[in-house]
């Protein structure tokens, strides 16, 4: 089976991004670029599927700058065996999906393969729009199943376990298809020294895909959220005193 995993390099989401007053833009330098967490789940799920069915290849693709090669390199050490970076003027979701769709065609042509399943994270931790996977499926005119927590190969294609608000759906879909992945019950694996060394030797392809559709969404301004004025902090000698004070204030504010 031919599997493609689409990934995005994002700033480490455990770091709180602030505005840089000098540039009036979000200061991304303070956070190390890493692979979007949901994409790491997608890659892990793809890798487990590959291990379950055997005889499969996982390719990773990212629309992004040269530095996105670092992100692809990490993926090559934990399950993927080929990687491509796509340079495109894609700043919103429809242009990104278009770039990915064109990249899919290019890779299929270059490698002489057809992708059976395309994995995406359900959303990126930076923009969290959750649109690209669905839009990519639309552009490729293939079905899409979102918010997967598990996947299984069946005769008719795949059986996907989709997380819902109250539980889960089992959805069957024919291949080729796109799936988007949310946090499964397991953690993505760590590279081992062997897999990391092997990954270093794999060249990362650069794809030229020509023009993509013009972005429709334009950012006009960024700002830090208005600070909610902090109220009072109570730290009395004993917790009993603190609580008495707090409960009094809550009563005065008529929230109790």
């Amino acid at each position: 089976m031919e599997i493609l995993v689409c990934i995005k390099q994002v700033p480490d989401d455990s770091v709180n991004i602030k505005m840089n007053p000098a540039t009036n833009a979000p200061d991304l330098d303070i956070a190390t670029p890493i692979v979007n967490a949901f994409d790491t789940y997608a890659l892990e799920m793809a890798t487990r599927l590959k291990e379950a069915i055997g005889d499969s290849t996982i390719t990773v693709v990212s629309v992004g700058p040269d530095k996105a090669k670092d992100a692809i390199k990490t993926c090559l050490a934990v399950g993927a065996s080929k990687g491509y970076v796509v340079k495109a003027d894609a700043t919103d979701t429809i242009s990104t999906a278009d770039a990915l769709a064109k990249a899919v065609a290019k890779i299929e042509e270059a490698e002489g393969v057809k992708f059976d399943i395309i994995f995406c994270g359900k959303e990126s931790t930076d923009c969290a729009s959750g649109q690209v996977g669905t839009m990519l499926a639309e552009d490729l005119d293939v079905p899409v199943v979102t918010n997967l927590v598990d996947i299984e190969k069946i005769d008719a294609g795949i059986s996907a376990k989709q997380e819902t608000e109250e539980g889960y759906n089992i959805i069957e879909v024919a291949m080729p298809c796109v799936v988007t992945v949310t946090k499964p019950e397991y953690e993505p694996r760590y590279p081992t020294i062997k897999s990391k060394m092997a990954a270093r030797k794999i060249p990362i392809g650069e794809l030229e895909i020509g023009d993509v559709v013009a972005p429709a969404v334009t950012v006009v301004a960024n700002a830090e959220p208005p600070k909610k004025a902090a109220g009072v902090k109570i730290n009395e000698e004993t917790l009993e005193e603190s609580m008495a004070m707090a409960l009094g204030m809550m009563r005065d504010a008529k929230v109790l």
Partner: protein
Amino acid sequence: MGCKNVMVYVETAESKPVNVGLEMLTAAKEVAEKVTAVVIGAADAAATAIAYGADDAITVDAAEYNTEAYAAIVVELVKKYAPEMLFVGATPNGKDLGARVAAKLKAGCVTDVIGMKEADGKIVLTAPLYGGTIYSDVTVEGTVVAIIRGGAFKKAEEPDTAKEGTITAETVEIADLRAKIVNSVQEISESVNLEEAEIIVAGGRGVGSAENYELVKELASLLGGVVGATRPVIEEGWVSRAHQVGQSGKIVAPKLYIACGISGAAQHISGITGSDYIVAINKDEDAPIFEISNIGIVGNCVDALKIMIEEVKKMQA
């Protein structure tokens, strides 16, 4: 008015509009001359939508929710009625639907819209980035699909049941579905309505154990509120994920939010800033949660919960 016509897809649950569906009508009224509500598979909800602000409504008969089918319906309606903007609520299904419709229409799509304003004749949408640490203002060329975050706008306080509006029934032919739901399993039987809760008592890792979490539940039940939780608590399995509050859970806007043992990661804070009154209890004096709390109590949250439970019992006695 920034635009002439806004179409609002009002999602329903058990034939009733979900909260965000009604909240969006308020937002739509502010920017549009005419607001058209769309309800699918729950015709009775059309009247409610009109009472809450829609000028008129379109109903379409359909089976249970399926993104492929519902998106096809909405796309047909957008093509026919040509609204300048389509509003969809940012529920899990709404996010899927909005993206699918935008993809089919090749329209610009903005997720988690929390604000809207007009500038230079254009509608500017505000959405959070980087886990809610940055708010981004964007404009969109052409048809706009805005996926609107629950709690960002307030629904009309009193529905105007006398208000009149045209309800049009449309039929849309659905092609064969490519992804088939073969089984739908309900693991979480409790109904947890965090979005509409007036009081939420939420716990984080600091609560310490499933056993201690019972205290969170007890206080919530005493106050007639709903139990909330942070992501680590869900991962610990202390409560079901229906209780998750924050970026990857529910966005809430209660009158009172009591945060126990929650340090306040950006992703959690971004889900509770709409709360009117936040009370936080944390043993770490420097916990970020205190920065957004009306009252911050420095101390052991388990002991604090016990005291609060006793006090509330006394008050109610």
